[in-house]
């Protein structure tokens, strides 16, 4: 038998899984309208490649991946694009984001699907195919799968861990997937195995899913694979990637490091399934299994199209009349969706109809009594009570010292707190404040750098301009000085002005030259009003001219010559 390890902490909430496993997976009915958000994975927001009025086929690309860490988005059914606009998102904020709104035509016509034999392709091509098919981690983090399929060169890939633990209460979509589609899951795992070349493949499933374990074992045997299907003890959060790795391999992933640094990579079973559908059937990710449960009459797992409004989907399971909200995800880590029109996305594994009967309102928060229960329950061995004090006091530096970013927000601490303190909410608050500060700091640093650069540039430009002007002035002055010198030489045989070197002499030379020119002009100027003169006037002028020439003959003592 396989040796298992243990992770610290964890809780055992009532699983509430039996309700939704009695019936097989069913296809959800086609909704009247689909709103497919473009940003459905970690990384860059895909660029829309369709516009309002376009007709699309099922599986047609509508959002092109933007960068390597980003995954494409496809039309979930055939129909007409009604809008590419802001629509409400399945997010605790209830804010909008760019989505493609599609009105189905009811025919559900596929694009031409092109199955490929991935064994004949280079690993890069397989990764690109997965990106183009929009395959992302369906365990909840929606990290683009192709980005995790490159083995680190420095560390040998030892274990490939496949996560079928599904530890959170109420959720059964992975359980049903493993029961009904084990063969395709196993073949998907085969793709990951071939790309990563690990020494062994471990499929971890919580021991409360014996049917799934049996189905997987049968499929592994039938395919002749060497994967080990391991039943892990049921204990929340055994399905956390770091916890499952710890349980199966005994390796503890250190803070701020990745499991690949230890030679381990982890994928969800549903991710393996979609990867197989994408490669072997040419079907991009346009639907996923969603557990509809909680305060409903017919809890069941449905294959729902991405973009289906949650309220419309949940109606299929016939919620009881006192249903007053929808929880996306499980009761431990999920959140109340603020709008019933929010669409199902790739991260939507479960919708729970909420009612006060099922989930009584949180009792008032009491003071922390430092009992330490939260520290005992924390699967990451943090000290939630310390984090709580610091987050509450907005002492974010200290929360980081106490490793708040190792918190996976699993909710174990809040679950066990005897004072019913919403610890996770405090941690989320602290984390998002720290991120916001980081963003502000980066923006300020960028602004400062650009400001300093601009100042430097302005100064340089000013200096360059001044230099240019000085050069131009000097050239002008030299030219003028030369002219003046020539003029002066022509008139009074003075020494030619020395070549003006500094601007001061150049200026003086210019002024002197200008004065000399003015003088010459004055001297050469013909008296005005000499046209159309009468004989008397003519005679008078002649007399004056005669006197002037007489006066001008003696040496010119007067600098100001006659003006009139």
């Amino acid at each position, binding site marked *: 038998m396989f040796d298992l390890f243990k992770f610290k902490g964890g809780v055992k909430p009532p699983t509430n899984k039996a309700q939704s496993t009695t019936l097989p997976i069913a296809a959800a009915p086609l909704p009247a309208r689909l709103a497919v958000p473009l940003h459905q994975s970690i990384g860059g927001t895909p660029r829309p490649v369709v516009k309002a009025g376009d007709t699309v086929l099922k599986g047609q690309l509508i959002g092109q991946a933007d960068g390597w860490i980003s995954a494409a988005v496809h039309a979930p059914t055939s129909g007409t694009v009604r809008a590419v606009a802001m629509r409400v998102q399945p997010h605790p*904020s209830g804010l909008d984001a760019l989505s493609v709104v599609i009105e189905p035509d009811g025919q559900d016509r596929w694009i031409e699907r092109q199955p490929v034999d991935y064994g004949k392709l280079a690993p890069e091509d397989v990764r690109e195919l997965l990106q183009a098919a929009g395959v992302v981690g369906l365990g909840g983090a929606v990290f683009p799968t192709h980005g995790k399929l490159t083995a680190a060169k420095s560390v040998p890939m030892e274990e490939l861990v496949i996560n079928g633990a599904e530890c959170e209460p109420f959720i059964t979509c992975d359980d049903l997937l493993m029961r009904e589609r084990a063969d395709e899951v196993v073949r998907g795992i085969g793709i990951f195995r071939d790309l990563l070349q690990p020494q062994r493949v471990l499929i971890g499933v919580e021991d409360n899913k014996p049917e799934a374990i049996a189905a997987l074992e049968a499929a592994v045997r039938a395919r002749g694979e060497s994967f080990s299907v391991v039943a892990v003890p049921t204990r929340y959060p055994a399905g956390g990637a770091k916890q499952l790795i710890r349980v199966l391999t005994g390796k503890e992933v250190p803070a701020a490091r990745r499991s690949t640094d230890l030679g381990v990579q982890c994928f969800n079973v549903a991710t393996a399934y979609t990867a197989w559908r994408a490669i072997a059937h040419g079907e991009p990710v346009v639907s996923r299994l969603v557990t509809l449960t909680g305060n409903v009459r017919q809890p069941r797992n449905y294959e729902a199209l991405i973009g289906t409004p949650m309220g419309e989907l949940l109606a299929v399971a016939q919620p009881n009349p006192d249903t007053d909200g929808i929880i996306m995800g499980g009761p431990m880590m999920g959140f109340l969706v603020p709008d019933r029109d929010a669409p199902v996305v790739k991260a939507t594994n479960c919708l729970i109809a909420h009612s006060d009967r099922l989930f009584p309102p949180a009792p008032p928060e009491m003071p922390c009594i430092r009992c330490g229960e939260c520290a005992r329950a924390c699967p990451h061995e943090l000290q939630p009570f310390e984090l709580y004090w610091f987050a509450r006091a907005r002492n974010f530096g200290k929360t980081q010292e106490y490793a708040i970013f190792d918190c996976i927000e699993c909710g174990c601490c809040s679950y066990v707190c005897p004072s019913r303190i919403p610890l996770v909410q405090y941690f989320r608050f602290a984390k998002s404040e720290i*991120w916001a500060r980081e*963003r*502000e700091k980066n923006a300020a640093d960028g*602004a400062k750098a650009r400001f300093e650069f601009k100042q430097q540039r302005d100064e340089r430009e000013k200096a360059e301009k001044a230099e240019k002007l000085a050069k131009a002035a000097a050239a002008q002055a030299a030219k003028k000085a030369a002219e003046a010198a020539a003029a002066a030489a022509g008139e009074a045989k003075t020494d030619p002005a020395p070549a003006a070197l500094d601007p001061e002499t150049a200026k003086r030379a210019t002024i002197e030259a200008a004065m000399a020119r003015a003088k010459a002009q004055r001297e050469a100027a013909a008296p005005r009003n000499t046209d159309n003169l009468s004989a008397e006037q003519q005679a008078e002028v002649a007399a004056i001219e005669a006197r002037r020439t007489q006066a001008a003959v003696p040496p010119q003592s007067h600098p100001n010559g006659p003006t009139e």
Partner: protein
Amino acid sequence: MELLVAIAIMALGAIVLGAALGYASVKFRVEGDPLIDKIDSVLPQTQCGQCGYPGCHPYAEAIAKGDAEINLCPPGGMEGVQKLADLLGREVKPLEAEEKPPQVAIIDENTCIGCTLCIQACPVDAIVGAAKQMHTIVAPLCTGCELCIPPCPVECITMEPIGESLDNWKWKYPVVAILPAEKKAA
């Protein structure tokens, strides 16, 4: 004699230590005032000049010299005043001007005549455009300083508050709802 030896020892000690200090003051001299950089890193770097100084660094210099109050920076808000007070050990004072939500400048591209005046006014190079060509604001780089508004001859620049989006949304501080006690008398 002993007296003289004692004096000589003390004098020698003084000379040696004095020389060491003198050498250290030259060798390990700190260029500029490190306090200015610390203050500068607290300021929001909008370079808006609303404090009356031509940029964040000059204001930091003035604060370090003691010429300026710490409550003159509206973009930094009360939080900035608090941080400066903590850093400098001064008293927190209410902000001189009104605190504004973060904002971004928007150029009405239909009205813009391409005069480049706003480009010259922008302290952080967040406006692109050329003479007689339409200008536009690179929104992520805009600090919301409003310095581009006065030079615009056609008044085509407006300030808009930055709304909440999925990228900048924050979890709120968990507030315990205080509910009125149930009326038991009724």
